[in-house]
């Protein structure tokens, strides 16, 4: 039956031509192949986000007076609402985690080098957008922690020289975090960011498809020395089936987290209340937050916070352009980038741990 339908479609649309590149696509097999799965897992989790997000939209009401109550309704009254919301929240966190893992794996395996610079740039932009998803989505339940985290986060944007204040007003929809901010963040979260992400994912996947999978230079050298050691597997179905196994594991992990640790709703935001003691941002912003905390209030004559924010921005920009400092595949790869990657990983992990433990 299915075969008949496929044949019917193929006769009209020539689907075989479309699928052909996937049939020919291969994935290198070596001791580090498992790192290739992280991109696919991140994509899968994005799919989970889209589906659960659409389901949440059926009941969610954006507005300072309704948002919290609507999420509470989803958590307590809507059939399996707790599961959908918990999966959406856990999946968001796991997606950011796997996106970071994917980014660092690409960095350590040197997959960003020529000709894959644009793949890296599109991937980095996707990572920034994913963090934007996290930041905008965090406010939507309109609880105390989200309210003050947004207040602090948007105030940091306001510290950027020259464009900071207008940007902050634009983000907040006014000088303060109010219901207008919630509506705006909701718009970013469900319309602007998804649109941008879909375009960038398309570009990213096209580039991956076009350029094929990168082989780490060390393994490439081993294969050049010993051509018989070169091994590959077909993307379809061999790699995809393995990828599907990873997706099943991800579903299992998400289900377990949602059932055992349903995502907490907290207390409704009170714009006139005081910020809870020891308030911290979500874990993926913690390293930046802690960096800003440890910078003295004045460094020479420059305001410490401004210095930190501008520094973080510049670091992000340099990270985005990293492949352009190391784009000569025949020559020996630049070691300082590996050193920088190790330092960055240790810095992010160390500062996050410090931020988590600090009072």
């Amino acid at each position, binding site marked *: 039956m299915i075969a008949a339908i496929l044949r019917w479609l193929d006769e009209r649309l020539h689907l075989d031509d479309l699928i052909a590149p996937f049939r020919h696509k291969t994935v290198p097999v070596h001791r580090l192949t498992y790192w290739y799965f992280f991109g696919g897992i991140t994509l899968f989790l994005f799919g989970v986000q889209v589906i659960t997000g659409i389901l949440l939209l059926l009941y969610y009401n954006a507005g300072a007076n309704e948002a919290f109550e609507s999420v509470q309704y989803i958590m307590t009254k809507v059939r399996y609402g707790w*599961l959908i919301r918990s999966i959406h929240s856990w999946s968001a966190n796991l997606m950011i985690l796997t996106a970071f893992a994917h980014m660092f794996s690409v960095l350590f395996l040197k997959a960003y080098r020529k000709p894959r610079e644009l793949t890296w740039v599109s991937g980095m932009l996707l990572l920034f957008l994913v963090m934007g998803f996290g930041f905008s989505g965090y406010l939507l339940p309109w609880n105390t922690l989200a309210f003050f985290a947004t207040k602090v986060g948007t105030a940091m944007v306001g510290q950027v020289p020259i464009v900071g204040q207008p940007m902050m007003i634009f983000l907040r929809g006014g000088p303060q975090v109010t219901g207008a901010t919630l509506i705006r963040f909701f718009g970013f979260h469900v319309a602007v960011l998804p649109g941008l992400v879909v375009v960038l994912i398309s570009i990213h996947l096209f580039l991956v498809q076009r350029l094929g999978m990168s082989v780490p230079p060390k393994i490439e050298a081993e294969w050049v020395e010993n051509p018989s050691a070169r091994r590959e*597997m077909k993307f379809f179905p061999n790699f995809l089936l393995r990828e599907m196994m990873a997706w099943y594991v991800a579903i299992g992990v998400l289900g377990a987290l949602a059932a055992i640790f349903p995502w*907490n709703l907290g207390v409704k935001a009170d714009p006139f209340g005081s910020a809870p003691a020891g308030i911290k941002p979500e874990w993926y912003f913690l390293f930046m937050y802690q960096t800003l905390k440890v910078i003295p209030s004045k460094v020479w004559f420059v305001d410490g916070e401004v210095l930190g924010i501008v520094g973080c921005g510049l670091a992000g920009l340099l990270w985005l352009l990293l492949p352009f400092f190391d784009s000569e595949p025949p020559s020996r790869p630049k070691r300082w980038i590996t050193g920088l990657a190790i330092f960055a990983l240790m810095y992010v992990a160390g500062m996050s741990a410090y931020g988590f433990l600090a009072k």
Partner: protein
Amino acid sequence: MASLRNKFRLLRAARTAGLAGVIVLGACLGYGQTTNSCLDCHSAMPDPLGVTQEKFSQDIHAQKGLTCTSCHGGDASSYDPTVSMGAKAGFKGKIDRKQVPQLCAGCHSNPTYMKQYDPGLRTDQLDQYHTSVHGKRLAAGDSKVAVCVDCHSVHDIRPPSDPRSTVNPVNIATTCSRCHSDAAYMKPYGIPTDQFAKYNTSVHYQAMMVSGDLSAPTCTTCHGNHGAVPPGVDKVQNVCANCHVFQAQMYEKSSHKAAFDALGLPGCVVCHSNHGIHMPSDAMLGTGPQGVCMRCHQPGDRCDQARVKIQSGLMQLDGAITQADQTLSVAEASGMDVSEARLAQSQARDQLIKARVTIHTYQASLVDQDVQAGLKIAAKDEQAGKDAMVERNQRRIGLGICLIAIAIMLAGLWLFIRKIER
């Protein structure tokens, strides 16, 4: 004789030179400011005549533009003592304690004058004072009793809203205790001196000093301030009723009211005491050391039976609320949302408070109505907690089934991969 005269002349010259020095120094220090010869000299004097500029500047009167001469008369613009403190300038010198209330009332009982500073300020303090024990005793010639300056201080009088004021709510008890806790000072009056010590153990003190509730009762709340009197035996419930309205209304209609009146017992104080009022507890209805009912009632009588019923009802509701709280906490710790039941728990607590207030009707049936209403809510909340736990378990069972299904899928995929790669 001439040498003696010369010696006196020398002494007079030295005194004049010294005084001139003080005046010149004072004039130099005060250059550019309004002349106040009183402070220039008195700031250099020891107590009790010493008043520094720093101290007087804290005084509300100084801040409103009044000076030493406003109370003491005299001429502050002259550095000649014979002029500044002369009879011609109306100098009054140290105000006699008996004259203090009248002196203060010169302004404070004048509504027209006081309006310019604070239209809302009362001007009946002197009239009130005349009705007080302090005022009556002062009129009878007892100058030991409190006059205005004993409570409000002198030369650094601050408004009551200032936390440093001696009559700010947080300081009133300490101010009263300066005399009322002094056993030697109070000996001639034959009244107890343990009020302050007892008050410091009371629930009212806790509310005022620990919780920072400035509306909590302190001495003047019950005794009045300018018209301070001990509330009479028959007036005690009226004093307490100012805050504890419902309890007082219930007491007024209760059988205890007539009985206490007949026995000359002072209402609320009989069970709750006065200065050392502790947080009431259900143990007050018991037969232990905190129990109060059995001080008058006999074991097994009709009232004792009602007491047992009331106490057991309250304990039952208290226990049910605690039990529901525990169940809800366990559910919350498992990540379940029981916010609705948590909200309802506050209603159950309200019922418990209501039941404890209804005790003042001394009717077990009325207390039981409140208890039953509270028990109903607590039972519902307890059930909500249990339901949440059942759902939690169902979720985990569902998870287990899903994980098994996923494991089977993974195994199937793995076998399929192996098959196609063989």
